[in-house]
């Protein structure tokens, strides 16, 4: 770390964002444990640097697509955590009006076009969003985040090839936490991985330590500017999922001690250390962390009290022609 170039305010903010993501997810896990989140949630604890380092570089008008593990990305793109928590609890006021839940979290108002329940499906959709941007001549980029497991699905090839042919403004980000659900992704992935695959499709691509928020930030900034000039690129971020696949997964399939060992690379702790070296006090950093926790705890409290959407809402927003409100059967 080059201290003279180190932008303390920026990384203080990034630290804050990482703490907020973690606090949000801890509150969400609690909500799940208390049976207030009824569907599955996929926490990103341990992967916050990827979310913040990437999404911290996006403008509001830029477009983001995410995965089933998308709380951090969504929050960092500017979505209101209260609306997100309400959505996780299936309550009125949720981003998706309670229709989507965690796996379909989205906030189109801030350019976040959705988490997706189908691994890899967001790649094609992202490419199409970028295609529209190009057709309309808009100055926006699309960032499409997917997991290491997604690179084994057809859309990875079809979408990246497409983006390159039409020279579309998309940054593909492979957030590689080493696992595809309970499977070690390397056991099901041949070849050298996402960078090599992207390069074979004509994209420039690079790998970074996904737990180093500064490195992710710098790489993203650089790649986004290249995306604007030269079309699609891929960023591969190596990270680790500190918890289970879902919040209720004990993740016993991992070698003993693996996760414990990885806590030493916790991106939040690493950022904290950096900020301390850069002169921030322990107190200041702890304050940030505690403020994040109390923000998200408060959000959870308020979400608990909210009402479920009325059953009649089930019939809205299906379609205009053939609307089920006039013909549901």
């Amino acid at each position, binding site marked *: 770390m080059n201290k003279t170039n180190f932008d303390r305010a920026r990384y203080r903010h990034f630290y804050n964002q990482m703490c907020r993501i973690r606090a949000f997810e801890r509150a969400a896990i609690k909500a799940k444990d208390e049976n207030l989140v009824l569907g599955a949630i996929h926490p990103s604890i341990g992967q916050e640097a990827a979310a913040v380092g990437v999404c911290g570089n996006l403008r509001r008008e830029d*477009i983001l*697509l995410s995965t089933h593990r998308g709380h951090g990305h969504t929050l960092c793109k500017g979505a209101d955590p209260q609306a997100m928590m309400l959505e996780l609890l299936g309550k009125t006021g*949720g*981003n*998706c*009006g*309670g*229709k*989507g839940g965690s796996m*379909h979290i*989205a*906030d*189109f*108002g801030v350019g976040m*076009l*959705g988490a*997706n*329940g*189908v691994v890899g*499906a967001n*790649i*094609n*959709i*992202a*490419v*199409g*969003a*970028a*295609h*529209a*941007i*190009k*057709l*309309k001549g808009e100055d926006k980029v699309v960032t499409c985040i997917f997991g290491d497991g997604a690179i084994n699905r*057809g*859309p990875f090839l*079809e*979408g990246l*090839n*497409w983006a390159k*042919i*039409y020279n579309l403004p998309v940054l593909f980000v492979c957030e590689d936490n080493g696992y595809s659900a309970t499977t070690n992704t390397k056991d099901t992935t041949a070849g050298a991985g996402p960078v090599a695959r992207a390069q074979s499709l004509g994209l420039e691509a690079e790998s970074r330590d996904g737990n180093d928020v500064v490195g992710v930030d710098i790489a993203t900034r650089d790649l986004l500017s290249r995306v604007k000039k030269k079309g699609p690129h891929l960023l591969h971020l190596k990270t680790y999922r500190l918890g289970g696949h879902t919040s209720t997964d004990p993740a016993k399939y991992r070698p003993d001690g693996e996760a414990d060992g990885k806590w030493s690379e916790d991106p939040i702790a690493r950022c904290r250390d950096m900020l301390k070296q850069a002169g921030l006090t322990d107190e200041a950093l702890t304050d940030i962390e505690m403020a994040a926790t109390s923000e998200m705890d408060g959000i959870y409290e308020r979400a608990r009290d909210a009402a479920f959407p009325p059953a009649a809402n089930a019939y*809205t*927003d*299906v*379609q*205009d*022609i*053939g609307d*089920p409100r006039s*013909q549901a059967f």
Partner: protein
Amino acid sequence: MKTMTYLEAGRAGLAEMMRQDGSVWALGEDLGRGGVFGQYHGLQDEFGSDRIADTPISESCILGSAVGAAMMGTRPVVEMRFADFALCAVDELVNQAAKARYMFGGQARVPMVVREPSGMWRSSAAQHSQSLESWYTHIPGLVVVMPATPADNKFLLMESIRCNDPVVYLEHKDLWSLEGPVDDQTETLPIGKARVARPGSDLTIVSWSAMFHRALEAAAILATQNVDAEVIDLRTLWPWDRQCVCESVQKTGHLLIVHEAVQVSGFGAEISSVVTENCFGDLKSAPRRLAAPRIPISYAPTMEDEVRVSASQIVEAALTQIGT
């Protein structure tokens, strides 16, 4: 009023919408060379290669990217080449396009048209001949349109492009060269309205797409035998015009549904069930379906013809049904 083929009418409808609305564009394989049947002939010259876009053989990305492009405010018209190849992009259509608006609580709109040339075409065998319209009627969020005439292929396509929902638009490959009158000044044609193409009092025949023409032929033959059949072209399968069908059945008491798709779980079953549910007291006979047996489609004409419903089969079924 002009005479046009079904193919030309579809092309004219697309061109007209592209002139009216700069956000409309089309994408698919070989479109720059007119598309596999010539439905896009000349359009790249007029609209350029951005708006008539040639794609790789990537059905999953053709359809999936259209979802993203639609969410971002364009109106993609997706060419699937053969309805059968759309099976390479079912996640994109069913899990993504159809559900996005709902799943995201109304934040997304997915105004797109998925053109899927459908149905049998001489000796194209099991992977180039399928009629899967009933699948799409089963999926919330989708509109399903199946034009039978040149005029309908122009105006229903235009209306489908204007529609804010994802529309599965199934043209029939055997109709491409069918000629018919197309009115230049027509009022718009609403999606969801059936057409009573031939009024009659003795029996209702409901059909759509290519089979509608067989039904009309059959009605002409029936007329020579003093049977006055009412023939309805359903035009749109979702939403479908049950009022039109039910009113007809209330009048005739007999319903015969004719379609090209496999009978088992075809859309005829839905029509039959709804009519029975709503007009039980009016029915003089059980609604009948005339459709394909549950077998794949063969290449050799002798065997292929086993899955083709002919006008004479319709006549026979009609006569049996009304008990003549």
